[in-house]
């Protein structure tokens, strides 16, 4: 097929490809030796052993062949010989969409198992970004991205609803503690902590907000929540859209500056933590002058400093911990949640493999918003279900809202006798609030 016969979208993708490439991505695209050692690292492969199209090296080759054909001169010179190829039709783009969004959660488990150091997840995110730039993406990704662009948070929560939720939570807290100071401060300037959350907490799980407020209250923290820029999640991480990633991160940073906050604390959310703490400054092109911290670290600090007291006997069941891929495999946040968990529960049971080697909850990479791939996702969740079952625990604890949804879904699907909870819930449950 000639250049003239290439679809407009395919031509646009090829036009933008060179601008997306960094030295690190190019390294990952040229270094693969097709040894296949990454294969068994992927939960999709483990649950679809007869299907080579789930293998990380195969998936990576869908990008690699285009790169070779258009950028790398070995593929320009002898495309057939090195497996180079191009894209021509919109159907080709749909096939790429199916692979990059539907057969990979960008969990990075293949990356840490590659002897060559090929970072497939980063290359896959680049591919997603190229597809999104021409409108080729799962419907859920389009909807969520639109909400985050237009409304400022990925679940389309209106400012009025957000404020109203904080107000009724504040009413309950004030009544519970019998203290007007127990309310959730909104837009209070010059605080030590500006607390940002996942919109899922406002919409489906406000208990996590009030639990965090209980902990801040018990610690006598000077904290506030912003009325804008409060969503620390970032769908740019999943969609590969760096522009969206940059603007969403900037909104959060901007609020911290406007309120003259000393530290930005993010609630328990793997992709939110990674996006705001690790990737956001790069996407936004900003150097951040204030501290950023996961609420896991904040809670652990309170305990270590004696600012809060807990009674682990209040959490009397058995607990295991699931590492979020974004926290553990991309940000090194895997030890602190364990230490904190063991301070607030009596019966902790380790899951294997764990930390950077843990398996994805299977809801990562935005998979929870892509309903068309739900059957695949749930099939691949067998790996996680087996891991959970082997612990014998009644509760799985995780520091990620995405993982909460992914794990809840697979627990229901595989009929496991287990519940999902977060550290903030357990710490709040174990709190020993001193008499006034």
């Amino acid at each position, binding site marked *: 097929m000639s250049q003239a016969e290439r679809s407009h979208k395919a031509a646009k993708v090829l036009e933008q490809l060179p601008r997306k490439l960094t030295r690190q991505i190019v390294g990952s695209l040229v270094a693969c030796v097709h040894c296949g050692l990454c294969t068994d690292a992927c939960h999709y492969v483990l649950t679809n052993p007869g299907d080579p199209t789930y293998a990380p090296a195969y998936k990576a080759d869908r990008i690699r062949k285009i790169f070779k054909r258009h950028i790398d001169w070995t593929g320009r010179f002898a495309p057939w*010989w090195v497996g180079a190829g191009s894209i021509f039709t919109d159907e080709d783009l749909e096939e790429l969409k199916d692979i990059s969004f539907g057969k990979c959660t960008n969990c990075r488990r293949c990356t840490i198992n590659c002897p060559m*150091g090929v970072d497939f997840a980063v290359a896959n995110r680049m591919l997603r970004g190229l597809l999104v730039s021409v409108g080729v993406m799962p419907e859920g990704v389009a909807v969520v991205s639109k909400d985050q662009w237009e409304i400022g948070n990925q679940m389309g929560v209106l400012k009025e609803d957000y404020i109203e939720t904080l107000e009724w939570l504040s009413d309950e807290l004030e009544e519970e503690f019998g203290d007007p100071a127990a309310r959730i401060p909104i837009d209070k300037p010059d605080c030590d902590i500006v607390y940002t959350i996942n919109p899922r907490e406002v919409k489906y799980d406000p208990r996590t907000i009030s639990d965090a407020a209980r902990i801040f209250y018990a610690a006598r923290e000077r904290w506030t929540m912003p009325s804008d820029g409060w969503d620390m999640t970032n769908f740019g991480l999943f969609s590969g859209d760096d522009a969206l990633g940059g603007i969403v991160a900037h909104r959060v940073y901007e609020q911290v500056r406007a309120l003259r906050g000393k530290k930005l604390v993010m609630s328990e959310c793997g992709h939110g933590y990674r996006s705001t703490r690790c990737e956001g400054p790069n996407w936004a092109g900003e150097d951040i002058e204030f501290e950023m911290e996961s609420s896991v670290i904040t809670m652990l600090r309170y305990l270590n400093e004696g600012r809060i007291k807990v009674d682990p006997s209040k959490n009397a069941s058995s607990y295991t911990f699931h590492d979020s891929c974004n926290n553990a495999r991309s940000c090194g946040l895997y030890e602190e949640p364990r230490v904190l968990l063991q301070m607030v529960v009596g019966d902790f049971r380790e899951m294997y493999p764990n930390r950077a080697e843990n398996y994805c909850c299977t809801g990562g990479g935005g998979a929870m918003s892509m309903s068309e791939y739900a059957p695949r996702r749930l099939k691949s969740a067998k790996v996680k279900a087996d891991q959970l079952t082997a612990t014998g625990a009644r509760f799985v604890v995780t520091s990620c809202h995405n993982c909460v949804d992914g794990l809840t879904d697979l627990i229901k699907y595989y009929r496991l006798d287990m519940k999902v909870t977060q550290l903030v819930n357990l710490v709040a449950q174990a709190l020993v609030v001193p008499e006034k």
Partner: protein
Amino acid sequence: MSPFLHLAEHRVQEVALAIMAIVYVTRLIWLFRFRRGRDRQPPTGLPRTNRTKGVLYSMAAVAMPWAMESTRTRPGFYAQFVAFHLAVTANIVLSFVIPYGPGLLESTTLVRLLQIVIGAGFVVGVVRIVRRVRDPIVRRISSPDDYFCIALLTAWFAAGVVAAPNSAANGEMHLIVYFLLTAFFLVYVPFSKISHYLYYPFTRYWLGYTLGYRGVFPVESVRNARAGSRS
């Protein structure tokens, strides 16, 4: 030594090496013309992790089969990897010893050692060819270059085993074949996937640089875990 063998051992090798060097340099210039991604944010992870440790861990991963699950759970595959790459090294050494230090090959022990190491590489090469053809996933991801590279190296190992004694008592053909194969290998390598060793230091460095800065590398042993984060 016939003039043709002398040509094959010296001038042909020198030209092939020069071509390889030129292509490699060009390739690296090409790679480094792409912009470098950077991390603006402060480091994450435990204080015991940092960029330097991440890079060292990443670069040394090849010698630590326990570091990655993919090698930890496949000791046989890792042993093949070691044998194969030792054979490549030995065969490269042999291609220099024959023309520039033939006296060393008067040692029967050294010759036997080279033959064993290179011969082991040949066996692994055959096993790898069979695996590439039979394993449905590896077959699916293989390009003609993948098959040609493993076949080329396996043939080169066989030639190395025969050439190691550096004896022309029964003719020079085996030495001529060995040196022509070596020359072809040198010229072809930069254009093929065998050039992965050129990229290895960079890909491992970049991965270690990033994941060390972000507290992931060195991957923590489950038993030695401690807390106290800066993130």
